[in-house]
């Protein structure tokens, strides 16, 4: 009785726009050109054009680099931080809360913080570099380091997330498992590698997948730190779509790219659901 309307509202605000997005993607809609909205004469035009779009291809490659490095860093750092915190219960509790700060900051504030860190005229880092007499380039305006600076800021912002998930899994780890291995004379390194790590496989996978999907929609950092530049070296598909639709008004074409992006995200989400519910059955 209550169910119908609520599911209907949910469908209207989420599913309907997605269907509409797909319909737009079949038209050459350009907000500056009237008459392009209802033009269904070449419905696959946008999709065909995507295959030939070198800038899109470059942005996909940038995404691969960005996602691979941020996910790897966040999972490894989150794992190490969780292990470290797990070993000292007393200090751990206060530190644990403080380490979450980067993650709970509004994303735009994180972007502003790193913009300031990378501004040589006010940044203590550059005072230090000058003091040592080093001539360090500003990473966000240097094509060689721009993507690296995004990776650094993103890792800082989100390693607490993987850390939290891993800490939660660690707290459920049966004590006997560790105790038995320790009695058998396992060193701490062996213990971590052969007992803890395999036990955490599921948690690491879920944390990594979540970060992977989130890395696809990274926006505030790129918008504020580099605006996709210099040139297009930090432009990921999500940002490219934003530029195409809101700077150039190519709404039809950017919708087509978005549809592909949404499909990718849905497949990844489905994978997460599989992993999680599969894990439930096993337990």
């Amino acid at each position: 009785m209550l169910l119908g309307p609520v599911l209907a509202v949910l469908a209207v605000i989420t599913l309907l726009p997605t269907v509409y997005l797909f319909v737009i993607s079949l038209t050459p809609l350009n907000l500056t050109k009237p008459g392009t909205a209802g033009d269904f004469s070449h419905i696959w035009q946008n999709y065909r054009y995507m295959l030939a779009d070198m800038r899109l291809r470059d942005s996909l490659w940038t995404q691969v680099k960005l996602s691979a490095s941020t996910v790897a860093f966040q999972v490894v750092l989150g794992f190490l931080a969780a292990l470290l915190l797990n070993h000292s219960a007393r200090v751990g509790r206060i530190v644990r809360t403080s380490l979450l700060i980067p993650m709970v900051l509004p994303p735009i504030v994180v972007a502003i913080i790193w913009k300031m860190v990378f501004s040589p005229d006010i940044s203590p880092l550059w005072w230090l570099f000058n003091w040592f007499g080093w001539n360090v380039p500003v990473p966000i305006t240097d094509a060689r380091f721009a993507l690296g600076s995004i990776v650094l800021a993103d890792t800082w912002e989100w390693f607490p997330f993987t850390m939290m998930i891993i800490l939660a899994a660690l707290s459920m780890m049966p004590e006997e498992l560790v105790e038995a291995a320790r009695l058998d004379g396992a060193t701490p390194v062996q213990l971590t590698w052969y007992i803890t790590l395999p036990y955490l496989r599921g948690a690491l996978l879920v944390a990594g997948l979540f970060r992977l999907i989130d890395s696809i929609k990274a926006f505030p950092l790129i918008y504020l730190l580099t605006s996709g530049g210099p040139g297009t070296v930090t432009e990921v598909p999500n940002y490219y779509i934003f530029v195409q639709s809101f700077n150039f008004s190519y709404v039809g074409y950017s919708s087509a790219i978005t549809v592909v992006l949404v499909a990718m995200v849905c497949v990844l989400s489905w994978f997460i659901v599989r992993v999680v519910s599969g894990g439930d059955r096993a337990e």
Partner: protein
Amino acid sequence: MRNRNAPTRVVLNAAIILLTLLILMPFLWFVSMGFKSNDDIMAGSSSALFVPTLANYASLMTRGFIRPFGNSLEASLTSTLLSLVIGVPGAYALARAPLRLERPLSLLILASRMVPPIAFTIPYFLVYRYAGLLDTITGLVLIYMTFNLSLVIWLMRTFFESTPRSLEEAAWIDGASLWLTFRRVVLPLCTPAVMTTGVLCFIFSWNDFFFALTLTREQAMTAPVEVVNFMNYQGWEWGKIAASGTLILLPVFAFSLLMRRFLVQGMTAGAVKG
């Protein structure tokens, strides 16, 4: 722990504390910046010691920075309340309905959180252009519902599924209607869970940057967008930028830390059950 000797523990703890300070450094520096005068900010390394000033904050009050804050507050609160009003009864019905919707529903909810915001922005933008909802709080409230309603349904359904039905059944036997049971028996039980969910919705709406950037111009502009405009047009007045950034993080900061466990639960809604 037990078979770990004291020196190792001291070294380990010291390492943890040092690392934490290192990681928090950019944040602490940023907040301190809001209390520095422009001279102190430009003074170089000597500005580790400075006389704190509230001048940056005071100048924000006179610059009409209050309005975007009001917009942020209004959009976030309205969207949160609306999502709760619609979502809580829906979640209750879903938890009690003999339906097999587990997989599709969890996928829909997870996907609506995971999809890049641009996927919603484009269709909403086009519809808002015709409906006159561009640059309005109403427009923001509606699009925030895309993630808030999903979140409410998911979290509250999990909660209702874990509460026993016996109380409700007793009320029915006494002749109470479904609605009366929901209001008198179920709602009082779930108040803490509703509050938690509401705070999460508020945090996620408050933190939004992308939707406000693309769907507002000036009337309904929210604080995060205003701060960025401020950086672009008013020159690099770092003290004021830091002060306004601090004001933006303030309302959600304490809540987020207090509710850290639920925060991760909210972020993984759709996949991980509470």
